[in-house]
């Protein structure tokens, strides 16, 4: 095999929102990479810029947002690509699943018609009949029983988990290479979450999908991701293989996130949480953006932006990554 470009490569992606000529950055130089058959988890708090960044990578940024940097899909630059060409990629080669399956389906179209539409958008020559047949197969693929009957039904006749399965079916309708799942299980019951993750993981393995799993739940990633990028205040603060990350977290924020996962085996009165809230857009603290909430912050953290420190296949943006002082946390 010759060297080929990675499936999806983001370099120094920046997304800024302007108001009165003054821009504030929500995504501040994110670099990521996903290959065929690989699962990348992106984890971060609400408002850390993880969704906005991925949407912007596909040209789905809100109106008035400024996107710079480079996003390459199979070596092809997506930033600045004409709308028509982006549209041909979206839903065909790159598919998305959204957070809330309750509102992500059109309430006045039958499920069958919606899946068939997703198929026909990128295969205009396919007949309606053939598209519906494909829709039926897709419903079976995501383990929805009685696909024939389900095709005729409207979204309100489906449960939350079933709707998310439909969303997944629509997403893989055109055999995409890359699937971006934006908090696919957040709106669902815990028991249903596990089922949906199973369906996703199964499809990912079978179709050799590159999968980007955006979540705020590190626990979800533990079982399903190959690599994890931790995002804070619009930047990737740590990136590593999933086992490495849990074993040797280099950034105090990551350590905080890991400590926040409830441990069922230990009796505790209080659950751990990271104090404070993420900084507001355009009001970042001096130095390291995490310093006001950091339990190991020193003077240097309030003065200087930390460099990215590297281990093999592991990087963290902290002055003290992979060294001392690991006193608290």
């Amino acid at each position: 095999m010759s060297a080929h470009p990675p499936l999806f490569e983001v370099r120094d992606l920046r997304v800024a929102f302007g108001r009165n000529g003054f821009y504030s950055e929500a995504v501040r130089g994110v670099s990521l990479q996903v290959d065929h058959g690989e699962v990348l988890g992106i984890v971060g708090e609400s408002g850390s810029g993880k969704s906005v960044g991925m949407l912007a990578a596909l040209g789905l940024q809100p109106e008035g947002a400024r996107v710079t940097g480079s996003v390459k899909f199979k070596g092809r630059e997506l930033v600045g690509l004409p709308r028509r060409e982006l549209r041909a990629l979206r839903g065909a080669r790159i598919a998305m699943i959204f957070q809330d399956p309750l509102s992500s389906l059109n309430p006045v179209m039958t499920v069958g018609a919606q899946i068939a539409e997703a198929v026909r958008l990128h295969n205009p020559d396919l007949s309606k009949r053939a598209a519906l047949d494909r829709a039926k197969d897709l419903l079976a693929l995501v383990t929805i029983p009685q696909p024939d009957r389900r095709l005729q039904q409207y979204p309100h006749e489906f449960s939350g988990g079933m709707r998310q399965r439909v969303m997944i079916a629509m997403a893989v309708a055109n055999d995409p290479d890359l699937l971006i799942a934006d908090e696919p299980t957040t709106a669902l019951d815990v028991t249903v979450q596990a089922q949906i993750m199973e369906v996703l993981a199964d499809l990912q393995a079978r179709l050799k999908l590159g999968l980007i799993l955006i979540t705020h739940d590190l626990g979800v990633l533990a079982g399903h991701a190959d690599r994890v990028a931790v995002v804070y205040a619009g930047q990737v603060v740590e990136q590593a293989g999933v086992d490495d990350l849990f074993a040797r977290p280099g950034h105090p924020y990551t350590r905080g996130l890991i400590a926040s996962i409830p441990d069922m085996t230990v009796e505790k009165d209080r659950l751990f949480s990271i104090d404070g809230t993420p900084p507001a857009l355009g009001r970042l603290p001096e130095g390291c953006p995490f310093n006001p909430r950091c339990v190991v912050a020193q003077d240097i953290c309030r003065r200087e932006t930390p460099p990215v420190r590297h281990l093999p296949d592991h990087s963290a943006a902290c002055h003290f990554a992979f060294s001392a002082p690991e006193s608290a946390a």
Partner: protein
Amino acid sequence: MTAIPSPRRISRPRWLTAPLIVGIALILFWLVATVAAPWMSGFAPLDMVGRRLQPPSWEHLLGTDALGRDVLSRVLHGARHSIPIAVTVVAVAVAIGAVLGALAGFIGGFVDTVIMRLVDITLSFPPMLLAMAVAASLGPGLENATVAMVIVWWPVYARLMRAQVLEVREREHVEAAIASGATRSRVLTKHILPLCWTPVLISATMDLGQVILLAASLSFIGLGATPPTPEWGSMISDGASQFYSWWVALGPGLAILTIVLGFNFIGDGLHDYFDPRSK
């Protein structure tokens, strides 16, 4: 067995309220009159069938007017003018307003500004005054009154449609459709517009009554129907000069009252049906 809840007879669905039933009955009556006026009334609307200004009697249930025409027959025939005009005005106004409003809401920017300023300008005139001005400049006649009323009415729907499109386009299924590669026109026609019609439908139903009222007003001041057309507004105008023969104006007045009431009741009923939260 423990206490069984006291039996409550459920004879009709909750949304089928008494006013809605009355409204449907009233409108059905006038729809029948529109089609079957010649067979329902005992006399031709333009014939002078009796002595002038007779009070109501068994022969002329609503009396006769200044020219000895049967008021009841004329009222029934009036429906044949009022209802088709109202339907035409509302249909054309909805068509124009919905298209322009949807484009304004969906495209935004310059298109939105142009369309909405046009709407603002039109709505800044009192509707009656604008209708009078347009009708007067076009000349009397029911056709010109129809055109005038469309000009007065389309901005209402444009504004309604724009607000609705602005609301629906932010919903997540629209973003999902865009993310799956749908074209802009497809997003608008398949994923936005089908969710926008409810308030337009409710408003259109109520406006049918308002348009009938406006049409009658235009005819009343001589800018709509011309004599001897049996139109309710001009009949009331006739009655206004026969003050002591109250029955001349009573017939067409009752007609307008019942039809406007009927449409309003149905509009309210639709509102409750589609939006059960508003009680």
